[in-house]
């Protein structure tokens, strides 16, 4: 079965979810591009968008329409060639409209799993629940006569476990997108011990056509990305716990969030990132990873407590941020949760005091937004961290400790053989998390 044939009938499980909708979009666009090739005009391409949520599927179409239009506007030069023989389509606007229609035409939103029984490729992007994943994958595998291939977007469940327990005989691969899949270029690729070589080759071709960058990860729960992120978050949490001896919980969260964003020149503070991913999702990923770890305990009672208080973060279906550790108004952080008061405290109540306590930022500081896209990024960062090293304010001390810990985590991922190289760890953090520099660096020395 060649590449096109494999993509003739595809099902995305969890298609209305945050990750599923992005995967669906990218796959729909790729399938439509194939369907528009002259040699494929007689084929019928089908993309089942399977999800249990009816409202979710209704929203999915809105999302697709907006996103496909953006895709089309960026590649109109190519689209004019694809629609060369359509004499009725003259202007860019007409061609773009037609393309949006042609992509959406492939997508069939459904709530029943049975549609996957006809597919040759199944993309799994449901919640990080190993039992549920195994149940669905084996059910499809038992009822599908095509010996389908399974791509799983899991960020934490070992692929070998899914392979073995769903009895897939090596017809599975971990193909882990980063959020949002339509934007982030990174894909972590994780093969099981007996994943078929032609499946791996297909995954590489597919990633290339989607213009994604593959970083191979070995099959350890959490892989590279969450392997770093979860431990990095736990470091932030433990720093908060230390600080709360001298200050309120909200103040401590505010300070560590600020240190991890501004002082470390990252796109988000660590607590904002936890909120972005979802407090509950983080707790869940740790639970999935923890049984596989022998020398550490990946668990946070604080996360448990937050979830008990129903503070979960995550995103609304329109992509806006739900409140978690932090409270957001129009995307800006306006307040911080307090575990004692069980409510949010406005930042304005303590910002000045906390900023004074942290001390001044190094003079050469510029925020991530400016640094990350600058052609002289390396020089800017060298200068900044050289300056940071010479300072001894509480803020810079916390930042130095953070850098050291992040570096340790990175090196451990290599020594534990989760990642094949320090470069791979850095690439994941640079492209999947949009960091301006990799965790394995000389800045902490």
């Amino acid at each position, binding site marked *: 079965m060649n590449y096109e044939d494999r993509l003739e009938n595809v099902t995305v499980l969890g298609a209305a979810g945050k990750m599923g909708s992005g995967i669906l979009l990218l796959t729909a666009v790729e399938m439509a591009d194939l369907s528009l090739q002259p040699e494929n005009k007689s084929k019928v391409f089908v993309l089942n968008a399977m999800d249990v949520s009816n409202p979710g599927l209704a929203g999915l179409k809105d999302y697709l329409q907006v996103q496909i239009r953006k895709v089309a*506007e*960026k590649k109109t*030069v190519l*689209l004019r060639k694809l629609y060369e023989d359509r004499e009725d389509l*003259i*202007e*860019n*606007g007409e061609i773009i409209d037609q393309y949006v229609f042609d992509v959406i035409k492939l997508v069939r939103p459904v709530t029943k799993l049975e549609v996957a029984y006809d597919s040759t490729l199944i993309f799994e992007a449901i919640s990080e629940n190993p039992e549920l994943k195994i149940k669905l994958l084996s059910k499809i595998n038992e009822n599908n006569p095509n010996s389908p291939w399974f791509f799983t977007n899991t960020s934490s469940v070992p692929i070998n476990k899914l392979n073995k327990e769903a009895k897939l005989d090596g017809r599975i691969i971990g193909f882990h997108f980063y959020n949002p899949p339509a934007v982030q270029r990174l894909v972590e690729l994780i093969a099981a011990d007996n994943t078929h070589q032609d499946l791996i080759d297909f995954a590489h071709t597919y990633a290339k056509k989607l213009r994604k960058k593959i970083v191979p990860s070995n099959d350890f729960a959490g892989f590279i990305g969450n392997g770093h992120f979860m431990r990095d978050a736990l470091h932030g949490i433990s720093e908060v716990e230390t600080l709360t001896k001298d200050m309120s919980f909200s103040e401590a969260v505010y300070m560590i969030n600020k240190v991890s964003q501004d002082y470390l020149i990252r796109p988000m503070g660590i607590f904002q990132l936890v909120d972005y991913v979802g407090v509950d999702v983080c707790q869940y990923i740790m639970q999935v990873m923890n049984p596989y770890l022998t020398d550490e305990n990946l668990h946070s009672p604080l996360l448990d407590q937050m979830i008990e208080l129903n503070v979960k973060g995550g995103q609304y279906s329109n992509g806006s941020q739900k409140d978690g550790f932090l409270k957001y108004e129009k995307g800006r952080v306006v307040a911080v949760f307090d575990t004692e008061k069980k409510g949010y405290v406005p930042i304005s109540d303590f910002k000045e005091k906390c900023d004074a306590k942290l001390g001044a930022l190094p003079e050469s500081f510029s925020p991530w937004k400016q640094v990350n896209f600058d052609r002289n990024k390396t020089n800017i960062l060298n200068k900044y961290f050289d300056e940071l090293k010479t300072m001894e304010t509480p803020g810079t001390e916390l930042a130095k400790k953070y850098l050291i810990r992040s570096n340790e985590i990175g090196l451990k991922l290599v020594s534990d053989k989760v990642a094949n190289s320090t470069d791979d760890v850095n690439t994941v953090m640079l492209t999947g998390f949009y960091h301006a520099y990799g965790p394995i660096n000389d800045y902490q020395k």
Partner: protein
Amino acid sequence: MKKLRKKVYMTAGYNTVSLGTGRKEFHPKKPRPGLEEYIKEAGEGTLKQIGGGKNVDESVIGNFMAARFNKQANLPGFIPMIDKELEWKPATSVEGACGSGGLALTSGIRFVLAETADVVLTIGVEVQNTVKAIYGADILAGAGWYKERKQGHAYFFPGQFSNRAGAYFEKYGREKARKGFARWYKNAIENARLCPTAQEYHNNLDDLIAVGLSEPNPKAFTDHLNFFDCSKVSDGASSIAIVSEEGLGKIDIPKREAIEVIGWAQVERDITKQPTDLTELETIKKAANEAMQSAGITVDQLSTVETHDCFTIAGILAVEALGLAKPGEGADFVAAGHTARDGEIPFNTTGGLIGWGHPTGATGVHQAVTIWEQFTGKAGDAQININPDKPYGMTINMGGDDVTVVAIVFKRGE
């Protein structure tokens, strides 16, 4: 063309900001001034200098595609909105694609020559940021023949001029041509930095030559031109008063504060035909020569030229069309700095279309305003020295791919 039977002057020029990407105040998602705000600002800018609408006999407005960019036609109806005194007076709208501003100027000149008006308020306007560039390209493609749209590039006009650049590369060499393009871009930006209304006024890129030399990306854009070879999408309006000698008296402006139209030409090429030679701007050549002939001057008497550099290649080819360099040597002429503000013959001293901006229907009028500013000492930081031995300046405004061209020769009033 017959000698002008009457003296015609231009004065009281005004430009709005050329708004679009590059200007700090521009944000694609925030509300911006509309067509009527631009018309009003530019019109008032001129009226304030000439004693208000009561002194105006007639108005003309140049615009290309408000019908599609702004869903608005019947632009003469906006003239009385500028000043109540303009109500019940004649107003005309003219269109010749990106040459609409030039047609507004020649219309104004004709009104004065016809002696139906002594003072003509002349405005050019275009508001194009209402749609994304990829859809704007469809609208601007209207400057070409509609039957060629299907075969054309997604970015139709950049595609047309990319073909011209490609032909030039093949005939005369790519490397030197690209060097000429990059220098044209550098000059444009450096001039724009001296003009507060210019779209590239805030441009602070370091190595403009290196930027100009960026390799074209045919997948996303055209084969032979990069983004820096192109003028940007702009919103803006320009305005100027076209007046007779009597008119100058009426508005109480001394001749020295005006520029005089010495000669001009308006030339059309058949839009349904391909250019004879892609490496030559035949219509511009005819128009420029005819204008100089009617003025009785030669190219070495020009102190400065405002030419229609919608693309760098159009700038280079105009240099050749004027006879300043032989065919194929325009790129070298430009690369050597001869068209820079301190060069032999400064071109586009407030940035031209690439630097100042290209609100399509306004461009022809903007060119005249720049010449007026330069010859009457009103160009501010962008002021150049006008050599008394070369007392003439010229504007060349082009609509479409060398289809509708207006060229005008001016000198300071005396």
